[in-house]
């Protein structure tokens, strides 16, 4: 397959994005002006088409793995950093996802960001992000992975701080950067440790059964475990897992398309991608799988619980992202190829519906004049029909509504977790189910509050009406904005089913990335998974229950329940006895919910923020206390320090020699 032009020239995908970034940066403000989105759009679309073709090539190849050396970047003696790309099912699928979702979001942003200050800067940075992300997915050695890992972090920093005049945006950008640095520190250590042990950083050698893996195993089980934990540390930072998840909700300070692209669909999945890529390593490391599983579980549950009480529309979605990422890590924690495949499957479907949810929220924000409090909205479905229907598709997909894409991928994860042996995984499966119910509930709550009922706030209603009528803004839902929503909605509905039913799941496809031996293993597992009808049924029931509960709680003012209530009066009295239902809800759900949410917040503020501040505060404290008084400006004292230091060193040297 390597002679295929689409594989050989795969480097065009990042290259074109980089070109677009440069062009937009140079020509954007001066010449392109309102057309500044075009280079970025073209680059993303080109990338989507090219990577789709590459994906087809990969799918049809017998030997679906190819290393494409592009150029040699740096040579310092025998340190060789090559910009070499790896095309295999895993990277091809991720590449397609990034570029396809990216191009749709860019199209949406061209409408959404119009009339914003820094229009060209925005698209320049987005194009740079696309370059970094596509490179991150494609590169074939850990050093380059680290480089692009940092670069996507930088792009994220720049884009979160896009409205840099807002102090909270600036603070959020800084927080994201610093929290990610903590994770990246571990990641860098892990890479160093791999280099020290294996003497190489190339995927092909590190992941080779008879090379890197052998060396890592030979160095003792502790080394492999440490390496995997350190790598996972990087993933925890980048993919916003507990306890480093705190930056992601704050990152919503960025423009909404950025939230959709970077903080929901693509960049945050880099951690999942990385762990999936190194599954052969993780599978061998004792105990690491459990850590990943537990962290994933905790994250999924905590984030879902926190989302229940949020009133900020984008934050609900942000916590939902964290929660879904937790699902993915749950699957990765199983430590088998099947787990990794399930995680990647969820990454893929999640990209569609989460991007769509965010874009929908962007549309809502435009209509309401930037309002984010869900309690002040309501009844928007009659004003923004396209947004409403597409949002509904995405929300149902997220909730795991049967036969929609989220259903398939979530079910794949739950089934994998459930079938893996061990008490921890059983527990994780249970937590996953509860979280699924919570997910359905909170997304239903957001949906009903925003789109159903009547507007709760007069000012917002006026704003929306004005927005819909006023032709100066252009139509409320123009084609350039509608088209991406509809495409994504179709994706949200169909992708899962198409993959699961038409292609028999991703397992046979993705397993090609892991070589032949795991493939057989994985296929066997897949067969077992194929019969997990019970789990499918259970998760469908759970999702529907969650949605139903959300409807009961928040969907009331709509005519639907009223009509129902008239015809079924006795039922109405029981089911819609609002008073005690609310009371019960208050006691059973809301109170503990609030308590847990408060606990989460304390954890965020005290523990994690404290950790972040400690990185700078502890050295500063030490310097203020111990080092500062030494710099007292007195020449004899300086000389004393110099000479005493030297004399002590010389004496040490002398006695070291006498001793040995």
């Amino acid at each position, binding site marked *: 397959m390597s002679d295929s032009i689409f594989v050989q020239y795969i480097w065009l995908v990042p290259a074109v994005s980089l070109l677009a970034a440069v062009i937009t940066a140079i020509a954007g403000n001066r010449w392109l002006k309102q057309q500044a989105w075009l280079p970025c759009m073209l680059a993303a679309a080109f990338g989507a088409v090219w990577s789709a073709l590459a994906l087809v090539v990969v799918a049809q190849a017998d030997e679906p793995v190819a290393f494409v050396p592009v150029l040699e970047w740096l040579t310092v003696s025998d*340190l060789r950093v090559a910009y070499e790309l790896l095309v295999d099912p895993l990277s091809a699928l991720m590449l397609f996802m990034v570029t396809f979702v990216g191009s749709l979001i860019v199209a949406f942003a061209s409408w959404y960001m119009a009339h914003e200050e820094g229009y060209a800067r925005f698209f320049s940075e987005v194009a740079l992000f696309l370059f970094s992300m596509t490179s991150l997915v494609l590169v074939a050695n850990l050093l380059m992975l680290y480089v692009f890992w940092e670069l996507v972090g930088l792009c994220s920093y720049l884009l979160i701080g896009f409205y840099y005049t807002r102090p909270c945006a600036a603070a959020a950008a800084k927080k994201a950067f610093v929290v990610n640095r903590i994770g990246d*520190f571990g990641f860098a*250590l892990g890479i160093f440790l791999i280099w020290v042990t294996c003497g*190489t950083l190339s995927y092909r050698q590190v992941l080779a059964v008879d*090379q890197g893996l052998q060396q890592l195993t030979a160095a003792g089980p502790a080394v492999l475990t440490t390496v995997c934990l350190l790598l996972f540390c990087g993933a925890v930072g980048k993919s916003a897992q507990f306890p480093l998840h705190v930056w992601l909700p704050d990152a919503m300070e960025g423009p909404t398309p950025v939230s959709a692209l970077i903080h929901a669909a693509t960049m945050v999945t880099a951690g999942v991608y990385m762990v999936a890529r190194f599954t052969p390593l993780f599978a061998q490391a004792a105990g690491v799988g459990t850590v990943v599983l537990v962290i994933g579980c905790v994250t999924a549950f905590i984030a879902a619980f926190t989302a229940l009480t949020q009133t900020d529309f984008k934050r609900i979605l942000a916590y939902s992202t964290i929660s879904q990422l937790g699902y993915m890590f749950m699957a990765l924690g199983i430590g088998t190829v099947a787990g990794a495949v399930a995680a990647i499957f969820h990454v893929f479907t999640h990209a569609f519906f989460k991007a769509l949810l965010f874009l929908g929220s962007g549309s809502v924000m435009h209509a309401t004049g930037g309002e984010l409090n869900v309690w002040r909205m309501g009844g928007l479905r009659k004003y923004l029909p396209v947004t409403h229907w597409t949002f509904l598709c995405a929300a149902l997909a997220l909730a795991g509504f049967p036969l929609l894409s989220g259903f398939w991928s979530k079910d794949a994860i739950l089934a994998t977790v459930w079938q893996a042996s061990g008490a921890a995984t059983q527990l994780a499966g249970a937590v996953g189910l509860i979280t699924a119910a919570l997910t359905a509930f909170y997304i239903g709550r957001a949906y009903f509050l925003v789109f159903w009922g009547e507007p709760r706030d007069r000012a917002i209603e006026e704003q929306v009406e004005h927005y819909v009528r006023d032709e100066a803004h252009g139509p409320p839902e123009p084609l350039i904005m509608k088209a991406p929503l509809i495409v994504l909605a179709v994706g949200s509905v169909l992708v899962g089913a198409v993959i699961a039913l038409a292609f028999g799941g991703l397992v046979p496809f993705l397993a090609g990335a892991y070589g032949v031996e795991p493939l057989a293993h994985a296929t066997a597992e897949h067969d077992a998974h194929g019969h997990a009808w019970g789990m499918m049924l259970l998760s469908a029931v759970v999702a529907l229950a969650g949605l139903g509960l959300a409807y009961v709680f928040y969907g009331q003012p709509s005519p639907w329940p009223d009509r129902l209530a008239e015809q079924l009066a006795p039922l109405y009295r029981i089911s819609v006895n609002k008073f005690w239902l609310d009371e019960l809800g208050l006691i059973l759900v809301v109170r503990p919910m609030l308590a847990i949410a408060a606990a989460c917040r304390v954890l965020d503020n005290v523990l994690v923020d404290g950790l972040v501040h400690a*990185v700078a505060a502890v050295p500063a404290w030490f310097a203020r206390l111990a080092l500062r008084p030494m710099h007292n400006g007195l020449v004899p004292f300086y000389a004393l320090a110099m000479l005493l230091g*030297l004399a002590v060193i010389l004496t040490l040297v002398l006695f070291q020699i006498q001793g040995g």
Partner: protein
Amino acid sequence: MVDLFLYLTPELLIILLASAAYVVAAWLGPARLWPWWALVTLACAAGALAVVSGMEGPEDTAAAAVRAVSYDSFAVTLRWLALASGLAIVAMAWYRAELATAGEYYASLVLLVAGLGLVAAANDLVLLFASLELISIPTYVLLYMERRDLEAREAAAKYFYLSVLASALFLFGAALAYGVTGSTNFRAMHELLLDPDRLSTSVPSLGPMAIGLLLAGVGFKMAAVPFHFYAGDVYQGTSNVMAAALSWFPKAAGLVAAVRVLVFALPGLEREVAWLSWVIAVATMTLGNTMALLQTNVRRLMAFSGVAHAGYMLVGLGAASLQAPPGAWFRGVDSLVLYLVSYALMTIGFFAVVELFGQNPGGRRIESIDDFAGLGQQAPLPAALATVLLISLIGLPFTLGFWGKLSVFYAAIATRDARYVVLAVIGLLNAAIGAFYYLRIIAYMYLRSGYGRVEYRAASPTFAVVVITAALTLLLGIWPRPVAQLAYRSATAVQGAFARQIPEHTRRHDVRRQVSTRPFRPTAVQAAVGAGHAAEY
């Protein structure tokens, strides 16, 4: 002897013209001519260097060996670096012609370039010492001339006294090194120490003392703990131009001297060099970064940032020494050259930014980091360039600073010595702390609103320095191959007699068309290659 003078034409030319300037300046006083004179001097030196840089030593190897200078590409690289940085400093100091002592000022400034060039070329302890002094003594005079207030007097006095003390330490170390080997010529020292017939008990007793004292001497030049104390005070008390000069010329000279003496001239004492550098590097990085966290004065902050960078350089120095037995240690030197290039660009460039805003009397001058507030809006282009330089100082990818740090830490890990692996980890932690205070400046520039008028001359030489350094930092950061290969060549040259064949893969060849289809199942041969020397990253 003719070839010797010919080889040193650039430096001798500078010395000659500077001496002439000293004489003429007594009559001429302040004149617009002086900066131009400095420019012409450096240009002449550059021309001369271009002619002689390809020069080989004399045919007769015995005669070549005892020359006081070495004809290697390490020397040539650093002489170019000295000239380039000298040009940058002169450009920053372009508006000093109003000084009453302008002639002396510019003459002293160009002498720093000659001093660094001679340090780079020196192959003899005596010449090395004299060249180091050729950097120090003009620096004393310059520190005095730069500002005429009490703070500047104090800075000059502090630097003078402590520097003289450090010279004495270096000299005693040099004397002991001579006592151990019996020669002052580096090549001869190297050969003599390796001669098994001559192994004497003087090496274990005096050798470590020599190493310690020499490290103290160069440690002062590099501002390494505990010889760094002057840095904060002196930088604060002098001008931006002199702070830039101080943060570059002595530091580079100290490092180059350390490479020549500690790594090359005294084989067999690597153990001492390695563990002393380890201790000093840890202390230096940590103190530099933590103290910089507290600073508000921008020059003081940069002084401690320079201390931290000296720590990173010491990591490379220790790695360089550790990789002896001969033939293996060049990786450390390699990383040091790369680091020096990156350090020169980002430090001089950043001081140029600070200086840029001080050149117009009406505008706001940058003294404390508060003065950076709002520059992002008020002066977008300089602020963007400063951001590039700061990102490079942090060591983020796609700037030259990243490659500098990477190569140094790489060299530390390449020693396969557990202590140095730990040192690399400590270095990484320090880099993380360092990010805070550089980021703080970026944050001030973009996230705070400024006060007061900001003025800068876009047509000034200083601005050209800013643009060029930032552009090079970025371009070489994206495409570091030329500078990496330059560093590699230079490092290979330093090892002189032990020159190893340059590995095949560093040659330029087109790998673009070779597409491999190999999944993670290498053949036995490839496995052997992978486990062997030609590791691939």
